[in-house]
């Protein structure tokens, strides 16, 4: 078997992940609004994938180097395959939308009108709305000899119009760009709140008000997706904050990659677009339905309509944290604590920072903020802490993809109230999630640490599965202080006591662990690895896993997204199995288990097994040492591995197939966790709703 044959291509593997998302939309056992949600997520994922990964492949192609990836494919090979697969999937997506979901929604009373389907009786009130609002804010742009085709920002929707001047006989075109926010306009006077017209259709309907004296012959809606990778010359950038602000303005101007046009657009309009937009060859998609289904998240997250959604399950607040009168620091002092999000409540994390902000014994709070939510309670607590005279250090990663604008906002606010804000590290993205509270107690300084696989974002904490740990162990405290000294440029990395960090030695750490399992088997013992992560791409790790498998180490992998490892190949990976779980919560935790000759090691980390995590990011791995917590994590792994509803098995040819549920027991891991927690005798907290609106539901880490 040649080396190339040992790997899957990462982009092709990613597209299969998005297929699994689409599958959830196709799955008729899911409630209708959940299915719509998955359609929306699919679109959103694909947009980002095109903006980042496909654009990168296109640049690679343009550079002229026929570089081969681990699977032996060049950029052009991959692009061709992607084009084909994307077309297939998008067709499936719209078939599902028009034939299935739209119809069912209509049965439930939801209508999304177009020019063609809008009942006459609504036209007058819509005209008034158009003239009062849209007529005033939109800017149509005529295109003729004197006015070239304008620059259109990525991801906005646009209408192209073919006009006719009755006096002249010259073809005339115009473009009206319009925002994709507030995509749906409720029909005025409709009390059900279920009847809408798409903004674009409304504009089409009354566009003649913009062009008095002209006739509108035809029109179509289209959208361009552009290259959106931030490229900042950091070495030269004195101030990362302003460099990113500048770059954000430029982002809209990346080169065009994809063009989406309404499928029924007229040939003349199409020709005109093809002449004026230089999208990447083959990446023009004719869409049989409304362009950009991601905006349907607005509908999905509307209040009410609970019967069309999954039954909400409230996160449980574990017993230890129930007593709000007790100091959280005492709770942590007694024993290490684990949170299994989103099945357990995120509240203790917020409480941790909030209590620290007004506790007189607290000297300092230090925290990384990678992606955080609008008016996040954590940011509020940090501000309060600074106002209360605590030393607050916040390490904000500005380079969190697609969140830069948001991050700059927090950074500035925090600085204003006196927090010490660090804007990341030149050349490395800060991806670790750690918070440290330093307290001056009777018997000396004591440090409390929170470490997690997920961001300090109370919104995503309800929809991403993550593991987080509270501890007051001295060794962890020393390391946590050291990591902040490193992030704030106070000190070089020290010798770690408990944590392992990237880009320093995380890859080697894993390679050594895998090697250790291999050697244990070679010496006649047992070898076992279980790893759960988002993506597995790193070639060195994959090769080490192959070696271990050949030696007889049993390897079970739970990989939600991309996986470049080929499982179940004889003489290579026959002892490796890979499953992927795609369900209503985004699988996001990274857990690594090594049998270690019976003295089991369990680690949790912010990093996947990917080059970018090992080499270009600051990541942290931490051991779970408490025996009870170890058992708990093992149970979590066990439940995930036994999933036979939402788990798919990766085959050696790259396909993912569903598990056939054993006749007697159906296990859906994301539901099973609630049962498990209930069994653990944890009392439920009921006040919270599970579903809350969000812009990009499946935002993080699905592109690369």
């Amino acid at each position, binding site marked *: 078997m040649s080396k190339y044959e040992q790997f899957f291509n990462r982009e092709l593997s990613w597209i299969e992940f998005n297929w699994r998302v689409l599958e959830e939309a196709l799955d008729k056992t899911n409630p209708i609004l959940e299915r719509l949600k998955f359609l929306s997520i699919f679109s959103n994922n694909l947009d980002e994938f095109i903006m980042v990964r496909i654009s990168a492949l296109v640049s690679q192609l343009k550079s002229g180097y026929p570089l081969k990836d681990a699977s032996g494919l060049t950029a052009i090979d991959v692009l061709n395959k992607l084009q084909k697969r994307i077309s297939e999937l998008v067709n499936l997506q719209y078939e599902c939308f028009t034939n299935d979901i739209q119809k069912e929604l209509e049965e439930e009373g939801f209508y999304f009108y177009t020019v063609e389907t809008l009942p006459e009786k609504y036209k007058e009130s819509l005209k008034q709305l158009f003239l009062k609002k849209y007529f005033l804010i939109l800017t149509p742009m005529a295109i003729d000899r004197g006015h070239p085709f304008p620059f259109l920002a990525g991801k906005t929707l646009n209408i192209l119009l073919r006009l006719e001047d009755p006096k002249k006989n010259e073809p005339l075109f115009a473009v009206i760009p319009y925002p994709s926010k507030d995509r749906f306009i409720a029909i005025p006077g409709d009390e059900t709140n279920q009847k809408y017209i798409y903004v674009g259709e409304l504009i089409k309907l009354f566009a003649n008000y913009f062009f008095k004296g002209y006739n509108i012959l035809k029109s179509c809606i289209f959208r361009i997706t552009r290259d959106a990778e931030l490229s900042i010359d950091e070495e030269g950038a004195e101030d990362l904050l302003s460099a990113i602000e500048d770059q954000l303005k430029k982002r809209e101007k990346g080169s065009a990659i994809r063009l989406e046009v309404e499928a029924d657009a007229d040939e003349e309009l199409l020709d005109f677009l093809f002449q004026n937009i230089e999208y990447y060859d083959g990446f023009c998609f004719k869409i049989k339905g409304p362009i950009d289904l991601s905006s349907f998240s607005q509908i999905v997250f509307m209040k009410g309509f609970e019967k069309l959604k999954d039954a909400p399950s409230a996160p449980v607040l574990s017993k230890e944290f129930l007593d709000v009168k007790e100091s959280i620091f005492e709770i942590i002092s007694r024993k290490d604590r684990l949170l299994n999000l989103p099945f357990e409540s995120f509240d203790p994390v917020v409480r941790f920072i909030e209590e620290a902000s007004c506790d007189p014994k607290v*000297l300092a709070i230090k925290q990384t903020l990678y992606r955080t939510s609008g008016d996040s309670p954590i940011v509020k607590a940090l501000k309060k802490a600074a106002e209360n005279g605590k030393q607050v250090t916040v390490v904000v990663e500005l380079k969190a993809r697609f969140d830069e604008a948001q991050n700059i906002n927090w950074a500035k606010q925090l600085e204003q109230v006196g927090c010490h804000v660090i804007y990341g590290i030149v050349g490395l993205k800060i991806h670790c999630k750690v918070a440290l509270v330093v307290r001056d107690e009777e018997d000396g*300084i004591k440090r409390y640490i929170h470490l997690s696989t997920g961001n300090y974002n109370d919104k995503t904490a309800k929809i991403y599965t993550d593991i987080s740990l509270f501890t007051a162990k001295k060794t962890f405290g020393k390391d946590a*202080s050291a990591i902040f*000294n490193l992030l704030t440029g*106070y*000190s070089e990395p020290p010798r770690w006591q408990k944590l392992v960090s990237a880009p320093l030695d995380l890859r080697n750490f894993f390679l050594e662990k895998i090697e250790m399992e291999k050697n244990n088997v070679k010496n006649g013992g047992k070898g076992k690895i279980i790893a759960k992560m988002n993506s597995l791409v790193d070639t060195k790790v994959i090769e080490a896993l192959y070696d271990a498998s050949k030696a007889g180490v049993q390897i079970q992998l739970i990989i939600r997204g991309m996986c470049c490892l080929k499982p179940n190949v004889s003489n290579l990976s026959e002892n490796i199995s890979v499953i992927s779980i795609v369900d209503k919560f985004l699988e996001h935790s990274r857990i690594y288990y090594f049998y270690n000759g019976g003295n089991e090691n369990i680690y949790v980390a912010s990093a996947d097994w990917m080059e970018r995590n090992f080499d270009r990011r600051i990541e942290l791995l931490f051991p779970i040492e408490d025996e009870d917590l170890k058992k708990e994590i093992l149970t979590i792994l066990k439940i995930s591995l036994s999933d036979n509803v939402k788990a798919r098995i990766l085959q050696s040819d790259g396909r993912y197939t569903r598990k056939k549920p054993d006749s007697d027991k159906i296990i859906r891991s994301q539901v099973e966790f609630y049962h498990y927690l209930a069994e653990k005798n944890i009392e439920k907290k009921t006040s919270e709703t599970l579903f809350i609106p969000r812009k990009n539901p499946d935002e993080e880490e699905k592109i690369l």
Partner: protein
Amino acid sequence: MENTRVAAIDIGSSAIRMTIAEIINDKVNILEELRQPVRLGKDSFHKGKILRPTINEAILVLKKYKKLCEEYNVSLIKTVATTAVREATNVDIFIDNIKTFTDIDVEILSTTKETLFIHRALIKQLEENNEIKEKEYQAIIEVGAGTVEVTIFSKECIVFSRSLPLGTLKMKQIFNKYSDNEEHFFRYLKAIVSNELRTLKRDIPTFKIKKIYGIGSELDCISKVINGENNQNMPVDKKEFQKLCDKIQSYAEEEMIHRLKISYDLTETFYATNIMFLKILDFFKADSFNLPKVSLRDGIIENILIKQNNSNLFSQFEKQVKINATNIGRALNFDEKHAKKVLEYALIIFEKTKEIHHLGDIEKSYLIVSCLLHDVGTSISNRSHHKHSLYVINAQEFLHFGEVEKNIIANVARYHRRSPPKTTHPDYMRLSNKHKMIVIKLASILRIADSFDNSNLQLVESIDLKIEDEKVIIICNTKKNIYAEAYSFKYKKDMFEDFFGIAITLKIKRI
């Protein structure tokens, strides 16, 4: 006692380091350890001074450190600078800039004082682990950028300390010069090591050195490489070390970084320095050595702790000072019997006239050294030997005394005979007024003590002193006739009487 938090900052040749610790019930608990590279040595050793960008870099690092200290409410920040700063021609500007921009006071440490701190930290560790016995000698080999400090110590104190001009940067230079002929390099090292340590060999046979401790960035990783991650505290076998050195010789830079996990800035000096260390081990005929995890900062913090507790510090210090001065005297072939006798008398006078001179422990330590070394000028010439003593003493290195203190001691020795201080004496005039007074008081005591052994034959068995009716009466107990002593006393008491305005009379008691 309330918990206190202290910070020790060490401005070294390649980095600025800080340790923050809290002291709870006399136990030191390390909270933070930081290291930020600032290449002061590169400037100082190559350009002679610290360049502006490097000064600014140091200021920025210290500002950050200070901020971290504020986070912990640190009550005391002790900052020291070593070779690189000490040897820079613009040391004063550097220190002043730091004071101006960060409000941090930097103390320049002499190599001997550095050794003292390291010794303190190490002794503490050894005592805690019960690894040092009474009457046993151990050695510290501290490899710095400029010099290598060889220190022999016993449980009680440091008995010998010497700076060898074998610092890592020097090693690199010499090694590069001999790069085509390694044999020459080895021979050079052997010669210089045995030459520098010759005097040591006379006093303490090498077989008596029970253990050797290596300290230095270049040595740090050795134990981990040879003994493995989990046995880093075990002694390192010299043969293994030799093998490792042989291997390293062929390593490229990247290989060193990867295999030894050392930082990039050490690769240039690594091989030559370890070879040099090997030669020192050869000299001591050691089969193994230890690489303890102690730092200058540990010593500084330990010192703060000791000062806070005001424990029986001086007696140990006194012992240490005595041994150090005796070693110097021996190297200069002094008359040990005479020196010790004079010291004995001087201390009696010092203690019994405390209400007259009002001097304290630190001045007592000056007196001890000047008594022991007052005659070392005779090794140059007997004529005007007091003047020779002045510069000979000033040319020595003392473990516990800086330049100013050394000059006080040298002046006390100088005025043990002949002319009292005059404005035409430049070394005396260098002293502050306060120090001048100390010199006169101590010299007047030394003169009297010296007179009691004027014949250098230790004819006086013992002395006693009492103060009656505003007079000092000294009683000499002797079995012999002491004409010379009595005669000498007549003149030598003048300085005391003049300065304090108190008459002294001598009573000779035959026993």
